[in-house]
């Protein structure tokens, strides 16, 4: 695993690049660990409160530990009318967790999201940012069992 300091200092010269650093940290750890957030604040010359304020403003960023696979269910209107609610229920019951939770084995985290821009194939979920198209409740076990 790359050192979070290398990740942050590799981007330090990008003006206003703290959000880029947060993205890079999330690609590595799936969330922004506290020590890394503090280090990023130092590197980009902002207070810890400011860095925390930025990280928590954006729904794509998380300061809370998450699972290996982050499932995000789109619940915007086009996915809503295509049956997003049933898909959410199916995922919750398959994984035995509620929205916002992580499975006990640390494998899956379930989140809601607004439109992810793949509305040609609603309803849509993303797994670690990869979209999965035309998801039906019945397909949920098959789709999720592919993630090892």
């Amino acid at each position, binding site marked *: 695993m790359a050192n979070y300091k290398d990740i942050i200092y590799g981007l330090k010269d990008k003006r206003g690049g703290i959000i880029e650093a947060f993205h890079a940290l999330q690609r590595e750890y799936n969330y922004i660990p506290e020590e890394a957030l503090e280090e990023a604040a130092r590197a980009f010359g902002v207070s810890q409160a400011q860095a925390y304020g930025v990280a928590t403003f954006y729904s794509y960023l998380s300061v809370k530990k998450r699972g290996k696979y982050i499932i995000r269910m789109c619940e915007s209107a086009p996915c809503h009318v295509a049956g997003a609610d049933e898909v959410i229920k199916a995922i919750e019951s398959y994984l035995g967790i509620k929205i916002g939770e992580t499975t006990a084995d640390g494998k899956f985290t379930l989140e809601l999201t607004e*439109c992810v821009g793949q509305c040609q194939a609603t309803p849509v979920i993303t797994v670690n940012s990869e979209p999965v198209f035309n998801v039906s409740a019945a397909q949920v076990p098959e789709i999720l069992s592919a993630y090892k």
Partner: protein
Amino acid sequence: MAEEMRLLLEHADKIDPRIAEDYIKVGGYKGLEKARQMDRKNLIQEVKSSGLRGRGGAGFNAGMKWSFVPPAEVKYVVCNLDEGEPGTYKDRIICEKNAQALLEGMAICGTAIESKQGYIYCRGEYPFVVELLNKAIQSAKASGALGDFDIEVRMGAGAYVCGEETALIESIEGHRGEPRFKPPFPGVAGLWGVPTVVNNVETFAALPYIMTKGAEWYASIGAPKYPGTKVLTLTGDVNNPTYFEVPTNYNLRDVIYKLGGGIKNGKKFKAVQVGGTSGAFIPEQNLDTSIDFDSMGAIGAALGSGAVLVLDETRDIVDIVTRISKFFEHESCGKCNPCREGTFRCREIMEKINSGRATEADLNNILLLAKVMKRAALCGLGQAAPVPITSTIQHFGHEYRRKLLQYA
């Protein structure tokens, strides 16, 4: 008239958007060449007279916007690829099919306003588009086509409000994406306080064609006051939920019945929401309207991003609008009170109505609240948030009343 007119998407899937040479083979970068030989004032005048208006929703004349940029040592060209409006994916399609046209368009703008640096602000949900764009930029730089104009891609992180141009600028600067007070407008004091032109992907990508084929030619396509083509994305209960590029005087009914192939499963039409989740819901009697900016405005709707959400007769409008009200509560940045508090109350009242616990007084309250928000909210998010509610109370009031307590 039921044909598409492909201008930006003419070579879709026939060229590799990452490779500058592919694009050059079909006439690419000729527009930039021409722009560079022109006097700056004439170039801006050319774009102005093409009638090209912003495709990001506000419909402002692009050349006019550029003409306000004052002299300064450093200026920036910023492309808005935040595309957060639910039901919209046209900017992604333009990048995936014709990214080089976007780069060329940004460089044309750079020539017009004398900027050497562009930024593309790409939404966080599109990491694969970031990758594509970085390759496209590398290839364009290597080919020499971009000259000394540089472009950097920055990523958003899942905040709808960052599509608003000043919030977008805050975000590139590494801050929370909260809109700024205007004026000053970005054209005067934008990114890091210097003059900055912000345009939508589709706006930039139209520029190469305006330069090569001429402003007069462009101005003659589609609706005279909002000329050119528009990329639409169809969702909901249509047989053909995909994207199309049409001239701007295309008829809304034809969008649904010809391009969209009509309503799915032989059902009847109920409503269409144009412009994404912040748009108005339009009933059957208004379908014979041209999709251009002004015609949509005249029926109390907005073309917006060009998203078209079609609902069949079985859909529960009040339930859908309740979902939409949650969207705005979630996406309000909280900077100003009318929106922070207003989107919360809208959602609360919509849930009350939707669950059959409301009375006529709640309907009156929500309409009053909508008025306050439209006038007092700081940015377009809070101003547009009540539109789905007010437009459906206006056109589908019976569906609301059916859910009120005294009728239950």
